[in-house]
């Protein structure tokens, strides 16, 4: 099975942030999460769709997510939702991401960033 072109290096840490942000709004299952990421990013963010599950499993093992099995339209789905620890992690990741993008933006426009990437 040939894979399509993705941007895995750039995506390090980003799937966690996006997934936590989406699930902060309500519980979803894997396919829904991937669709939501694609729709909201205008398909700019490209990952192999199956790669979302290791991220979900990892976040659940870390206590950031919880899951439950639900049967919808005769099909069993595993729905994920954010725990209080996951909300804290989301806040931390969002803060780091904002710092990072600000620093990169400042560098791209030729300025200097006091809070360099640490």
């Amino acid at each position: 099975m040939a894979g399509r072109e993705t941007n895995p290096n750039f995506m390090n840490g980003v799937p966690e942030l996006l997934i936590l942000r989406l699930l902060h709004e309500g519980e979803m299952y894997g396919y829904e999460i991937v669709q939501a990421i694609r729709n909201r990013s205008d398909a700019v963010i490209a990952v192999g769709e199956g790669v979302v599950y290791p991220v979900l499993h990892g976040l659940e093992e870390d206590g950031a997510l919880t899951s439950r099995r639900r049967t919808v339209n005769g099909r069993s789905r595993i729905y994920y939702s954010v725990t209080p620890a996951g909300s804290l992690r989301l806040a931390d990741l969002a803060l780091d991401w904002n710092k990072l993008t600000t620093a990169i933006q400042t560098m791209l426009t030729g300025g200097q960033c006091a809070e360099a990437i640490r």
Partner: protein
Amino acid sequence: MLKPFDELREKLLRGGVAPRHVRRYLGELGDHLADLRVEEEGAGKSRAEAEAAALLRLGGMDELAQAMIARRQLQAWSVRTPWAVFGVAPLLLLAGAWCVALAILWTGWNIFLPGADTPFGTRLGAHQMFDLANLYFQLDRFIYFAAPILVGWGIGLIAARQRFKAVWPTAGLVLIALIGGTARVHASRTGVPGGFGHISMDFTLGSTMPLIPYGLIHVAVILLLTVLPYLVWRLYKGRELSA
């Protein structure tokens, strides 16, 4: 539907991902693949085209495997700490089973043979074969002798499920066979008349030279009984993969 994931399952297990995560991952991928196929068919593609497009969107096998393998928190304990799973845990299990066996022996001795100097060597008549006392002591013997074999099978099962290479499971099986084959139980009364029975264990191949071959045979029998199912499974799996 899960046929495309057979190769992925083997990669994940060999990569150290815990079997429970592998099972769930493959289930979720199967559901996701079905959703993608429906979506592609809804876009006007034939079933075969939709299937191919769905697999492409799901991701390459290496990408799917690496995404799981790279996450240490999804790895099995047997991969993270093989010394604990194949060394310490079997020893603790064996010790626990033997504690139960010795407790049964001690209580049986005091309840059913209160006057005897030892619980060993008491001959029962044919009419006593199904006595509670006999069944009690036979249960004790079963736990004592079966414990190393059951623990060894447990090691083989964990190794087989995780597609482990032979080194750690073999080390665990040899350790269990050595401990199981060299263990000896002693029982005696204290010097005081009517005193409590005293039960102890030691580990030796034989107290005298002529007994050493019997100890070695006991070790070999345990090793053979525990290794055999694991070896058969490895041969079966090897043939299955080569086919």
